[in-house]
């Protein structure tokens, strides 16, 4: 099961060209949906307006080299390690979902475009990564759905309360789960049941890629840009309009804010973690 290309058996009754056309069509849906989503939400317009407004408050101008190093940091921290998440469980779940989805989609495309011919032999690694990707999405996704997502963890709603905007996560989970079941049934030789699950898998995948307009799929494209902008804003001194918190024992701070030495002493101690002493789980 884990080392066989699940798409190669389909060539008996679905031509390779049809499968390839389906992948291309889904890609067009994702690209078109993302553009429509950005036009509808005016994300790009807001993004550039926000960047321009922040520039007015900038204390210094960043050079090209500095911006390039910030872009590298965005790539290694925010994009590859999902550093924007303050909650470590959410971050772990996001990483599983992201890398699992990339593995799943990329290996699907390679197997469909490269290894569907009658005489072509799929390298063992590709189906292995395809199954691993689907499994990673399932682990991260079900963990998210049942316990981490805010509706369950903070709002106290039951896990089965579904909103329209859950279409992304639910269709993603359905796609990978049904793919794994289909591959398993194919491996054990239950051809008829496998075909049923294949049809369900295709329906779930079609819902996933065509409902991009109503989902969070577009965030893959604008989140890195927003993360870069955020880093620029902190580096150039405008700090997103947030106040600076200076060194409390410096002479300048004492002179500017006399309440600090008056009530907290000349060298205020570290007051500890305060609110961060315990995780927010009060339900």
């Amino acid at each position, binding site marked *: 099961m884990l080392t066989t290309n699940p798409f190669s058996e389909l060539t008996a009754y679905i031509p390779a060209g049809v499968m390839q056309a389906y992948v291309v069509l889904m890609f067009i849906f994702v690209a078109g949906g993302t553009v429509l989503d950005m036009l509808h939400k005016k994300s790009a317009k807001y993004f550039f307006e926000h960047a321009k407004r922040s520039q007015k408050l900038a204390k210094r101008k960043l050079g090209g080299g500095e911006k390039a190093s910030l872009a590298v940091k965005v790539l290694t921290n925010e994009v590859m390690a999902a550093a924007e998440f303050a909650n470590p469980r959410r971050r772990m779940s996001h990483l599983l979902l992201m890398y699992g989805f990339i593995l799943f989609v990329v290996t699907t495309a390679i197997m469909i475009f490269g290894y569907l011919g009658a005489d072509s032999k799929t390298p063992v690694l590709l189906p292995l990564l395809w199954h691993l990707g689907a499994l990673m999405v399932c682990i991260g996704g079900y963990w998210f759905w049942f316990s981490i997502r805010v509706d369950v963890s903070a709002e106290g709603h039951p896990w089965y309360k579904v909103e329209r905007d859950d279409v992304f996560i639910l269709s993603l989970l359905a796609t990978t789960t049904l793919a794994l079941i289909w591959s398993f049934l194919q491996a054990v030789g239950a051809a008829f049941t496998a075909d049923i699950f294949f049809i369900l898998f295709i329906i779930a995948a079609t819902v996933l890629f065509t409902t991009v307009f109503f989902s969070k799929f577009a965030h893959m494209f604008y989140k890195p840009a927003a993360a870069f902008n955020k880093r620029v804003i902190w580096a150039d001194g405008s700090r997103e*309009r947030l106040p600076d918190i200076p060194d409390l024992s410096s002479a300048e701070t004492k002179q500017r804010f006399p309440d600090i030495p008056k009530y*907290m002493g000349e060298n205020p101690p570290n*007051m500890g973690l305060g609110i961060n002493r315990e995780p927010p789980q009060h339900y």
Partner: protein
Amino acid sequence: MPTFVQMTRCDGCGQCVDICPSDIMHIDTEIRRAYNIEPNMCWECYSCVKACPHNAIDVRGYADFTPLGSSVRVRRDEEKGVIAWRIIFRNGKKDWDLLAPITTKPWGSGYPELKNAPSPSQEQRDSQLLFNEPKYIRLDDGGLHTLESNGLSMKEGVYY
């Protein structure tokens, strides 16, 4: 000054939902970002402001605190024990930084050791006063403090 969420900064983690004592911070079911569902009922405790890991929650300054339309942003630093405010006027010409202490002792270390306090006498138990009341309202320091005893008087009408 009730709080409100800058939706583009919020990542919908739900920490404000968890901490709000008035239960008025909730997650929008469409865009999955937090919002203050009833600013009229906000106690202005700023628990959500300090809980937000992304500094996504701002306050809407009252007109007698800052001119309307100003940006009022807050940052609480737990380890330093201070709160900092930055107020920028709508036209951008005024940019204020303010800083104030929020604790004078490390968090969790300032609780009174009530178990070491002497037990009240029978006379105190029979009295209408509550525990430590004479001390805190300074009844034992020459009687109740009033405007008259402090040489003050009420003025008629509204005055500023």
